[in-house]
Every structure is written in structure tokens, then in C-alpha cells.
């Protein structure tokens, strides 16, 4: 299969990106300044992320669609206001996670943002659940550009007037070069920011304007260190089909009303786990010293018993030290529990900590 390129490929090249293949796309891992500088620039100023590889799924329909989607997602979609978004997941019958996603109520139905590696299989799963009743478009005519960091609101507002007034986890249609673009106030870095859905042919122009206003392109490398510091999960690493939202400590994203009523895919397991607890759970892990514990690092308790595994681990530039997340047996999940991480044959001390590692600065909103 040919490796795909996003509409910003030429711009990435112009900005001297180093590329990697990610989910079938040629994506920038970093630019000339490197991951640490890009990370800090996003935290202190404003960074632009090409996330056009992610899926933008439009599903068109009315009340019946809302009812049908409630059988799939553990959300109270009936009460989701127009242009408001929720974080959720597509689960299997065992409540294992097929994908994590953002669903937004739009005028004609819903817009769902899906992970790049899962988007085609998600489409098939959803189409099957919805029995082909609704028009579904996995739109590859649109790019997705995220702009994140404290200066992003001013920078984007200079180009697209009015975006400043959006609340966190809500969106609206705006106009750029007489084209309709959909912008939500959201992101995945732990910073205030926006995600812009725009026709492919205008993506390059918009991005270049944002760069002119002082924002900079940021690669997938810094995207990973930013989201991990913010305690956010990466599908395929921290989340997969063998983990449930309760185990992933994402219970907050499940509507309380829906838990009491059940009747969504995986609800039996979710309800059981909420009532009876889980045997393993996702936690933050802070290694002592500078040693980095990466994905698949084994976690031991003080009696040298294997109690879990790291699912994401890196160096956090804003924390200025190593950070990690992983799953441990529930009894060892309490904050400040001392654990040991086996790196290159040696066990290194670490402690369970609360997430995020880096304090969020989202704008307040009606979420």
C-alpha cells in the first residue's frame, strides 16, 4: 500500500521536518529545533499540529440517530447541546476499547474524530451497528489542524475572528477564504487550543498564516511528550481492546445516568467493574532520578512481585524529568506507593502519582 501524505506535506518539507510513517501516513516526527524546543514552545507560545491523518466521520441523522448512538457510546447524547463535544470510546461487548474519540453534535448529526490507525475499522464497526440506516462520510477531503498553547487563542483569532469566544469542548462554523471551516476549542496537549477542520485545498494557506502570526509547526514527537505530561492516553499503547474504560481510569467520561440505565455496548462489564472494582488500573508513575522507563517496562512491588507494566514512558521537558503511565494491580494503585521499574536488567525506584504531571490551563467553559 502506498504511504499517504497529508495536504501539509510540502509545508512540512519546507520547514525541514524529519518524517516517520505513522498509521500509513508520512508524518513529521520533528522539525529542525527538536522535540524539547517544540514541546516548550507549545507550552509557552503556540504550536501547530498536522493531525489530518485522523478520521473525521460525519454521521447524518436526527433523533433516531441520537438514540442509536446511545446504544453504542456511554454518553447522554440527547442532552448534548448543538456544537458541544464529549470525549468517549467505541467499545466491544467486553467493554474493551476499539478506539477513543471526540464526538460533537452538529446541526445535521454528529462529527466524530477518530484515531488514524483505527478510523477505517471504526467506520465498519459503526456502519454495522447502525445497520446502514444513516449517511456516513469518513471525510478525506478535509484536513485537521490543531493549534495549541497559551498564545493560540490570540493568533487564531487574528486570522479567524470570533474563535476566542468559543468555550472549552465546544465548536462552531467559521469562514476562511469564503470556505466553511469547523473549529472546536479542544486538543490533546494539556494546553488551551483549537482543532480546525478545513478543506484540504485551504489547509496549507491557513497554516502558513498562523505561522506568520507567530505559531510554529510541531511534530508528533512533541505531541507525545505533551500529551503524556498532560496524563492523556494514546490509543494502541495506554488503551486497547484488552483494557476497559474503567481499568483505564476514564470512568469520568461515562455518563452517570447511562451507567444506572445500562443498555450500551459493553455496559454489563462496565457496570460490574464500577460496582465491584477492577483488578488492574491505569496510574501515573514518576521514576526517581533520570532513568526513562518506556512502554513494556515491567513494574514490581517492594517484595519484588511483578504487578504491572508501563504503557507510555518518556522524558517530560516541562517536568524536566522522566514521566510514565502504566497499569498496576489495583491494590498498588494508591498515590505515593513505591514501585520498581526494570530497565536494562536493573530495578529502579519510582512512585505512583496522580495525573496530570503538568497542570492544565484549559479555558473555562460550559462542559
Amino acid at each position: 500500500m502506498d504511504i499517504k501524505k497529508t495536504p501539509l506535506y510540502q509545508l512540512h518539507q519546507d520547514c525541514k521536518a524529519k518524517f516517520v510513517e505513522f498509521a500509513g501516513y508520512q508524518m513529521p516526527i520533528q522539525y529542525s529545533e527538536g522535540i524539547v524546543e517544540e514541546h516548550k514552545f507549545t507550552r509557552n507560545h503556540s504550536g501547530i499540529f498536522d493531525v489530518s491523518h485522523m478520521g473525521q466521520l460525519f454521521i447524518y441523522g436526527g433523533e433516531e440517530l441520537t438514540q442509536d448512538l446511545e446504544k453504542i457510546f456511554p454518553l447522554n447524547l440527547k442532552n448534548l447541546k448543538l456544537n458541544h463535544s464529549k470525549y468517549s470510546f467505541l467499545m466491544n461487548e467486553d467493554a474493551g476499547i476499539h478506539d477513543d474519540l471526540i464526538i460533537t453534535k452538529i446541526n445535521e448529526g454528529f462529527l466524530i474524530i477518530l484515531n488514524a490507525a483505527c478510523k477505517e475499522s471504526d467506520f465498519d464497526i459503526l456502519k454495522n451497528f447502525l445497520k446502514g440506516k444513516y449517511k456516513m462520510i469518513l471525510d478525506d477531503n478535509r484536513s485537521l489542524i490543531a493549534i495549541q498553547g497559551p498564545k493560540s487563542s490570540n493568533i487564531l483569532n487574528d486570522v479567524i475572528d470570533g474563535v476566542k469566544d468559543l468555550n472549552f469542548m465546544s465548536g462552531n462554523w467559521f469562514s476562511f477564504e469564503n470556505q466553511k471551516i469547523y473549529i472546536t476549542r479542544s486538543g490533546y496537549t494539556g494546553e488551551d487550543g483549537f482543532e480546525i477542520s478545513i478543506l484540504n485545498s485551504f489547509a496549507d494557506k491557513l497554516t502558513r498564516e498562523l505561522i506568520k502570526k507567530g505559531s510554529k509547526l510541531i511534530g508528533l514527537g512533541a505531541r507525545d511528550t505533551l500529551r503524556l505530561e498532560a496524563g492523556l492516553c494514546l490509543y494502541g499503547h495506554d488503551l486497547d481492546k484488552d483494557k476497559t474504560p474503567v481499568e483505564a481510569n476514564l470512568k469520568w467520561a461515562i455518563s452517570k445516568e447511562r451507567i444506572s440505565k445500562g443498555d450500551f455496548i459493553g455496559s454489563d462489564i462496565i457496570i460490574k467493574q464500577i460496582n465491584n472494582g477492577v483488578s488492574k488500573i491505569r496510574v501515573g508513575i514518576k521514576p526517581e532520578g533520570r532513568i526513562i522507563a518506556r512502554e513494556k517496562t515491567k513494574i514490581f512491588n517492594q517484595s519484588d512481585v511483578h504487578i504491572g507494566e508501563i504503557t507510555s514512558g518518556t522524558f517530560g521537558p516541562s517536568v524536566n524529568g522522566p514521566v510514565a503511565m502504566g497499569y498496576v494491580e489495583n491494590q498498588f494503585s494508591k498515590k505515593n506507593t513505591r514501585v520498581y521499574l526494570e530497565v536494562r536488567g536493573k530495578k529502579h525506584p519510582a512512585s505512583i502519582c496522580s495525573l496530570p504531571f503538568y497542570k492544565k490551563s484549559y479555558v473555562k467553559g460550559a462542559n
Partner: protein
Amino acid sequence: MSEVKYSKEHEWIKLEGDVATVGITKHATEMLGDIVFAELPEKGSNVEKDGTAGVVESTKAASDVYTPVSGEVVDTNQAIVDDPSKINQDPENSAWFFKLKIKDPSEMDALMNREDYDKFAKETSS
């Protein structure tokens, strides 16, 4: 004048008398990206030619550091452990990794000179 040679694993080695200073090349640091962690061999330990003698980690991944020749570790550069970003800043000078009392000077013969290394680095990265 002291002699600097280069290995296919992108280490440089500078021999002065029977003590060799080892570090990683600028080309290596450019491939690795931002270095955020460094681990060095223990002083007094013996390392074998082409064996691992340390680790560097970037934000992306961990990589072993090899020793191009055998010898006893007589000194290590704690400054790069305390601040690994020094390795990106000055890899072929102040950010050296360790010093070895070498066993067999002839092990130096098989290593590359600067010109050959630059050619090698260019070929392998393209």
C-alpha cells in the same frame, strides 16, 4: 599530535599516550535528537571492544553506546549525566563519555579517520 578515530557505531576516540577518550559524534547526536539521559560505565570496570559501555536516550528512544576498543575505565564525565543536553551542544569535545586505559593499541588500526567516517556517515544516513 593526538589521533582521533571513528567507529561505525558513531563513536569518536582520541588516543593520548595509553589513555583514550571516547564520545559520540555530532552526526550521532543529530540522528538521536534531544538527548535527555546518559548512563556511563563504572570507573574501574573493564570494557571489551565493540561491547556496550553506556546508554543515551533521546525523547524518542534509547541507544547503546559501544566502546571501539578494549580497556579499563579510568574516568567518566559526570557533567553529561547531570545535564545530558550538553551532549547535543558539544558532542566531540567537552561532552566526552569516558576515558579508557587501553589494552591493545592495534585495535585503533581498524577504525576510520575523519574523512572516511564523514563519507560513511553520509552514505548510511541517506
